[in-house]
């Protein structure tokens, strides 16, 4: 937001050519304060407009310029100079840039340059800014000041402190913010007529200084060229439609309704028994031979993963055969999962041992089973049972190691700790020796066993 048209009118009225000649500076300043209710924000707006009028050389008469400068100062009457937003303007007025950089030849003109002041004007401004009573000078008219004789005045007030403060403030801004220049640029047309009528002048000022998007508030900064990225190159992105025959996938009728499952009847009954108690040798043979005759029968004898532990405990041999037949099944991992997590026993170990020697079990599974065994041995309370289990585990491990079913390196620490803990048991000591021998490379894995694995397992 900038000034409204009405506000602009008032300001221009104060700066009127005739008025500035007849009124004292104080009078004009009072008028300004009377006509505008000056909030901080609004002070900025008025100040910006005044600065623009100075920069763009839109105030023809020297009196007008001086009044504008005075008003700019008076806006912030009583405040410390360094804190006012237009402090820079005053510094620039007193020391135009050419003075700082002693560049000679062509006349330089910077964007937003301010008019150059005459000596009396500078004198006046210095007085204004310095810490002296100003009543006397403000009682004068602009013309009186301009025409006053100040002799060989040299501005001798030290503004370096203020300048330092200002520079500090500036440096806090990012560099890119400091690069803006006003977008208004004078481009005088060379004409013969020199009578500029006031109405046109007011229109111009209002056009620049008023309205929502007033030019006065705009700046240009150097711009990067930012390239937008290319569209993604992708292969085979669009959907190609091929026939899929959705009709082929339709609901199905259950053809097994009321069809007695005769084929598996006997086997199923035997299995039901097998979950509860050990089958006789004859029964075992009958079941196994039925399973042998029909490779798919195994899926129809009612075995589910949850029933496996009972089968293992009561009929380990049947369990082994059945599991071997189920190796192709999609459910085999579920069976393994149950097996590895069931309570450790001679029978479960026997089943696992047989499986390891017959089929490729997932290593993960074997490792999990061993960890399970070791932790069971460690936690069991009954001393007699513990000894028994430890012996079993040791023999089992030796068998696995000798048959190269497990890579002992992967379990080395765990197994070694186990051996040390139970070193009182002969088999554990033997296993420990085996580990050491393996470690030192004393024996390959093909040497003959020191203990008959099989015999011990069965015993």
């Amino acid at each position, binding site marked *: 937001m900038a000034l409204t048209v009405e506000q602009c009118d008032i300001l221009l009225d104060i700066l009127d050519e005739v008025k500035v000649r007849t009124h004292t500076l104080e009078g004009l300043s009072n008028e300004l304060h009377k006509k505008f209710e000056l909030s901080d924000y609004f002070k900025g707006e008025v100040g910006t407009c005044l600065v623009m009028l100075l920069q763009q050389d839109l105030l023809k008469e020297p009196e007008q310029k001086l009044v504008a400068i005075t008003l700019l100062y008076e806006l912030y009457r009583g405040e410390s100079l360094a804190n006012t937003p237009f402090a820079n303007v005053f510094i620039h007025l007193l020391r135009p*840039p050419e003075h700082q950089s002693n560049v000679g030849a062509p006349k*330089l*003109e*910077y964007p937003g340059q301010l008019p150059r002041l005459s000596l009396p004007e500078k004198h006046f401004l210095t007085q204004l800014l310095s810490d002296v009573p100003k009543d006397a000078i403000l009682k004068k008219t602009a013309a009186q000041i301009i025409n006053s004789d100040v002799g060989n005045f040299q501005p001798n007030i030290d503004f370096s402190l203020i300048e330092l403060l200002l520079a500090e403030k500036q440096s806090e801004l990012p560099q890119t913010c400091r690069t803006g*220049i006003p*977008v208004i*640029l004078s*481009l*005088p*047309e060379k004409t013969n*007529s020199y009578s500029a009528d006031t109405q*046109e002048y007011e229109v*111009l000022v209002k*056009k*620049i200084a008023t309205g929502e998007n007033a*030019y006065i508030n705009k700046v*240009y900064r150097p*711009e*990067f*060229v*930012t*390239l*937008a*990225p*290319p*569209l*993604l190159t*992708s292969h*085979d992105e*669009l*959907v*190609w*439609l*091929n026939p899929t025959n*959705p*009709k082929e*996938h*339709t*609901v*199905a*009728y*259950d053809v097994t*309704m*009321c*069809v*007695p*499952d005769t084929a*598996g009847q006997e086997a199923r009954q035997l299995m*039901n028994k097998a979950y509860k108690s050990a089958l006789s040798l004859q029964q075992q043979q009958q079941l196994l031979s039925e399973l042998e005759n029909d490779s798919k029968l195994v*899926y*129809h004898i009612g075995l*589910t993963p949850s029933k496996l532990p009972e089968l293992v405990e009561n009929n380990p041999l049947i369990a082994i055969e059945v599991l071997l037949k189920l190796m192709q*099944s*999609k459910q085999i991992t579920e069976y393994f*999962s149950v097996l*590895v*997590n069931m309570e450790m026993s001679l029978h479960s170990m026997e089943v696992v041992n047989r499986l390891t020697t017959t089929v490729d079990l*997932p290593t*993960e*599974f074997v490792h999990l089973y061993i960890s399970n065994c070791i932790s069971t041995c460690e936690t069991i309370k009954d001393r007699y049972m513990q000894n028994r289990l430890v012996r079993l585990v040791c023999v089992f491990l030796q068998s696995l190691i000798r048959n190269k079913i497990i890579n002992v390196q992967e379990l080395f620490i765990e197994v070694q700790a186990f051996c040390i803990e139970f070193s009182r048991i002969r088999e554990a000591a033997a296993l420990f020796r085996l580990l050491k021998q393996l470690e030192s490379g004393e024996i390959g894995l093909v040497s003959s066993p020191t203990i008959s694995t099989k015999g011990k397992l069965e015993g």
Partner: protein
Amino acid sequence: MADKEDTERIADNVTDQEQEYAQNALNEFKKNNYIAALQYINKLDYRSYDFKVAHNKALVEYCKSDFKKTESFQKNLTSICNQFRIKVEKLDDVDQCILHYNQAILLYHEKQYTNAICVMDRVYKFIEPMDDALAKQVSLFAVELQLCVRQSEKALSLISYLENQLINGTPNIKILDKSVKEKDKKAPPPPDPATEEFKRKLLRYKIRCYLMNHNLETAAREIGMLLKDKQNFEAMFLAANLEYLKGNLLESQKILGAIPNDCFLYNECGESSTVMFYNNMGAIHHAMGKPNLACHYFQMSLKEDIALTNNTKKDINEKPLHTLGGSKYHELMYNLGIALLHAKRPTQAFDCLIIAVRRYHRNSRLWMRLAECCIMVTKESNEIDFDIQKKQKEIVVDVVGSRERQKVILTTNLSKDKKYSSESQSYAVPVPSLEFASLCLRNAYTLLPSDTASSPVPLFLIPGVTPPVPSSTPGPAPSPPLSPESVMGLRNGILAASAYVSLCLGDYILALEHAENLLKQPRLSGAHKLLGHLYCAEALVLLEKISEALEHLNPENVKNIGLELPASEDSEERKIRTSPPNKWFPHNLSTAHATMQYNIAVAKTIRGQLDEAIALLKQVWQMSGKCKVPGHIIMLVLYIELKLGHPEPARNLIKQYLFQNR
């Protein structure tokens, strides 16, 4: 447990009379005499403990309604499950599979593929004990489901299992039809028509898989076998697809043209050859680089699809099962959106893709495309930044006053892509804005498929609990799966777009992060490398690190501006040629270098090295004879002259470029 065994025993206890009813019901069912079948089943009604009777009754009633009363069939199945406490999570009996299978079939036709897969993963575990006919049905269905979610590798592994087991394997024991059993027992089974038909179906699925994972050579071999039958329109579609993927677009068009328009009618088959034809023609024209024509075809296809799927009666109970999920609306919207985007109609493209993303919201590339629409809405092409004539005219936006008081008002910005607005619009509003683009890009990045192919599920987790089915993985559906190379390209694209959008929105820190990440990627196209450096530099300047920025702008950094990933020695280049010619501005390396040098001049100007900047700009200006250079150059010269305190040259520039063109 004991209860269950008891009921099992009772269920197995079947009288001869009951067996006869069941046999009769089955025979009538096979002859499609549903009323008669129902009558026999009703005679078994007293077996209220037997869920098979209840199931078949519900099923035959459904068949009797011409597969229209889907909703009530679904309800019946659910209530049977509740009544007999059958849960798919605890499936452990092959007998219950058929019930779940039927539920999955309904889910499939309702397009709930992920749910259907969840059920079928359980059912499939019992494929071995199933009877042969059902096993085949189940396994083909499992393959189809995997293809629906574009998991061609999984589908292929299912197929290879099928080939081993069902064709070469031994027949099942529980077959009702005695005659079949007898025949199968003879040592080498003669090729019976059913097996042949099954093999053909399997072959079709295999080809679809090969096309999907771009194994074109194998696909070509297998299609040849199917094409022996001249009337095999399905094979012709596949053949056209193959030619399309190979880039033989005219050949593909020819094959499509030879397929009769009405060979698959929607109400009969659940899919329409007309819809397929127009859609595929659209794809071909898109690949030819004729996006407007492609749009036309997609619109035709869409019109047909809407007419077919909406005209048939609205009520779900009035539509037969196979026409429930036949609409290709979202796929067509996707295609149309992509074509519109390439036709430089980003606003319309956005509207289409927003519809597609509602269904395919886990597709990274689709989110990326949405972001591209947003970007294109704000900036149609980079070419506008290089149109010196036009940019000249934009330097002065107004002239006020006259005579000696004449003032020109300069522009505040020549580039229109920056938008540091604080408009309080939520990013989440789906309008083609850069704010929404940033949200799309975040989604796209999150959904990027990981580099490692799906990690194997560990074998053993918790006792007794099978691992849960992974939720639908982010994938490219409805498009075929992405090759690792495509994923790389996509990731680069997302990073570049993210950096650009962040810059435009004034988030330099994020922009720098994305741009640096982009430059770190192992393989980058020349264009992305250029962009990575440009974006890094711009962000760094705005973050007050001009020296670092200048390093990025060294023209030596960019040796080419190709859009394709550089070939790597280990990439097996499967040549798929379906991407339309991509036109990106700048077209040549000199323009890219000119852009970099111009941006160096900007950086130096900001740092106050005005003389160096002006010297650079002179160099760039000299290039303008050979290639396009940024149109901002005059404005920057003007700026520097003013900054140097030389208003006269600046005024002359304005008079020279501005007023002569007025």
